[in-house]
């Protein structure tokens, strides 16, 4: 599944970059995220509860920062598993705009969902994913705007 979009954030670019690269900060905006563990600068592990329709699963997601060009470009790879389900994703975000802001983020994600979540939740996944993405960016925008 492919997702992409553009978000305007009313904050200077280095602040946006720092926020997005801090797993604890950005993780606090992920819907259903229960814990974030920073393994090293480029490796994190999150536990998150995800619900699609009547299916709900607690995922353990291992994330690797695959590419990093401050303060413009980052590519994150994620591999998550829950009993009977798995998610593999590559997310890319590119920041642009005046240094003092507002900052434009062009993002895209290539997500492969396997197992029960895909099989039983197939017809609801896209709607749920769009909702979760929307919630995440709303949260990021509001936290950065208040910073």
């Amino acid at each position, binding site marked *: 599944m492919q997702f992409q979009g553009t978000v305007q954030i009313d904050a200077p670019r280095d602040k946006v970059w720092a926020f997005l690269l801090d797993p604890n900060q950005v993780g606090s905006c992920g819907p259903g995220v229960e814990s974030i563990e920073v393994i090293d600068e480029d490796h994190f592990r999150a536990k998150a509860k995800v619900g699609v329709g009547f299916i709900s699963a607690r995922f353990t997601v291992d994330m690797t920062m695959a590419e990093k060009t401050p303060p413009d470009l980052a590519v994150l790879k994620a591999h998550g598993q829950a*009993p009977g389900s798995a998610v593999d994703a590559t997310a890319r975000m590119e920041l642009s705009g005046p240094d003092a802001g507002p900052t434009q983020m062009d993002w895209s994600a290539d997500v492969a969902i396997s197992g029960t979540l895909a099989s039983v939740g197939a017809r609801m996944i896209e709607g749920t994913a769009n909702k979760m993405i929307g919630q995440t960016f709303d949260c990021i925008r509001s936290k950065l705007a208040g910073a």
Partner: protein
Amino acid sequence: MTTELHPQTTPEVGGMGHSVKRKEDPRFIQGKGEYIEDVNLPGQLWLDIVRSPYAHAKIKSIDATEALKIPGVAAVVTGKDLEGYKLHWMPTLAGDMQMVLPVDTVMYQSQEVAAVIATSRYAAADGVAAVEVDYEPLPVVVDPKKALQPDAPVLRTDRGPDKQTNHIWHWESGDAAAADEALANADVRIAEDIYIPRIHVASIETCGIVADWNPIRQQLTMHLTTQAPHAIRTVVALVAAGAGLPIYEHNIRVKTHDIGGGFGGKVPVYPGYVLAVAASFLTGKPVKWIEDRSENLQADSFARDYHIHAEMGATKDGKIQALKVRTIADHGYTDAAADPSKFPAGLFNVITGSYDFPNAFVEVDGVYTNKPPGGVAYRCSFRVTEAVHAIERMVDILAHDIGKDPAQLRMENFIQPEQFPYHTPTGWEYDSGDYPKALQKALDLIGYDELRKEQAEKRARGELMGIGISSFTEIVGAGPSHDFDILGLKMFDSCEIRVHPTGKVLARLGVQSQGQGHETTFAQIIAEELGFPVADIKIEEGDTDTAPYGLGTYASRSTPVAGAATAIAARKIKEKARLLAAHLLEASPDDLEWTNGRWSVKGSPDRFKTIQEIAFAAYTNHPQGMEAGLEAVDYYDPPNLTFPFGSYIAVVDIDKGTGEVTVRRFVAVDDCGNIINPMIVDGQIHGGLTMGLAPALYEQITYDELGNNLAGTFMDYLLPTAVETPAWELEKTITPSPHHPIGAKGVGESATVGAPPAIANAVVDALWHLGVRNIDIPITPPKVWRILHDKGIS
């Protein structure tokens, strides 16, 4: 049903032709049937299965640490554990290999990865959720045509170095050169791609087992959902021998209890069965495994999935000349079909159907993909449904192409009654049939000419109505031992009859009812032959310790094979009864004649002995030199298959706004030879028609590009209910099988086989004037709506 039947017995005796109420129904309608789920043994453990989220992946590690901490979890079994016993792979009924648990690679989404054994169902499920498996995803092959391309990843690397391909086997039948030549010379030549989608039997009872290894007695009892108890027993014995386990066939007992629907889905051996047996062997306790609905829909064997390309040639006035069919069969990751071993594509070469084809050639290639095993003969005698759908679609396309009425074209091309026994160009000998009679009866019953007038009027008004015909020939009753075996086991079947001193009868058979009414119909055969009332006859199946060996119930083989064995065993008893009667009447056996359950002296009808009197004498007053008792057994090896047939006509209306198809009327004229119980035959046809409506309009298992099964619940896998099902209108013709002892043919599957093309033909008939030649089933509202939308119709 109005067909004239002439029962030879009184209603009290209830022999053939009587609609005897089903002896099994009192327990079913009171909720007192006993299914595997109802079997609970002291000390029983539960087994649940960890399944793969990926359709193709390497297993990097399996960590059971957290699972084993859960109270009640006794053990977690992985492929590596089974490898030590050489139990990680098992043979399929098609002679391929299937994983019980994978050691390093999973091959389809929801495949078994590990088993958790626990003291309760809940603890087992909690244990499954706590087992951590680390996977590395591999490229997924979903499309069988792509699987054959040179750059496709080879899925079954376990096969020998000369088999590093996704191609499993090639099979062909008929004369390719003759078919090519006839096609080249034909005035009219048509070609079509027809896909018969992957579907699931979706029986109401899912699969399950209670495996009970008794280490003291060294006995294994398997309470098991299986349609073929004896074959399973032998396979288990062979697998145990291969694994070096001390489980021998005389100490293996398979008990089926009642079975809540089989339809072919309970013929294969599933990994859950083997895991439960292994777990019971390791723990010395009974182990129960019952799959849930989603496991059943995602992991059990599937049916159909044939990609057919058919070509047909005819003269300009519609006399058919040649048929050529090329097919790709998607088998999933292993060929687990229960086809007879000489027939990897089943009896698909019955594809010339009811028509007198001078030339035909058919070829099938089996292919591996990242899906669960396919090839189940879903209420179908080994690929006949696929064959019938293709030929009935092709005949209709030809009729429309040359502007001839589809009924007329069929009448002009039918094999005629005087041509039987008829030899098909692909090697079958049809035993008997009268195809024009069945079609004419269906045309008369539905009022065909009036319907065509109505259709013309409606079309002029822009309304969409279609009429579709299917004049199918089935091929059932596998099968003669010279051609038919499964894993080497010849496909005979058996019946043993014991007449007790007080004139009551116990009969045991090698087949296995799954709801078909065997306890009634086989009793009626005995009642017919021996004159015992049906009420005095008990039929037992499904216990391998007591029943004679047989190959089980599928492919409509019970009446053609075990029914014949029952009649012949009864006739053996009748012959012994003649000798006993001669002794009692002090007459020569040759002077006796049999009428209505008694042997009487010819010319002196007052001098007789009833079968009940004879039975008592068999134990109390048998002549010196004769064996006491009144018993017989027969193992019946059929000389040929039987070929039931019929003509079905569907009338459909299509909603232009939504694309929804409504089956307004459906007439089914069936011919299954002599009829044992008309009510049960009608019941079989009702069920079969509904299971034919289902794939025609609703059911399909689809996969996304990652190999995720998208029909894993009844929300997505649409079974028709009474709301969607039309009122079936049934009729019969009776053309007895000339070689079957009671002239009967199989019937359980005719309607499943015959119904889908009647509905598909009706839909295409409604849309032909818009340029529609074919719509693959299931014909869902979105498919039809898209066609109408593209044509600017709403």
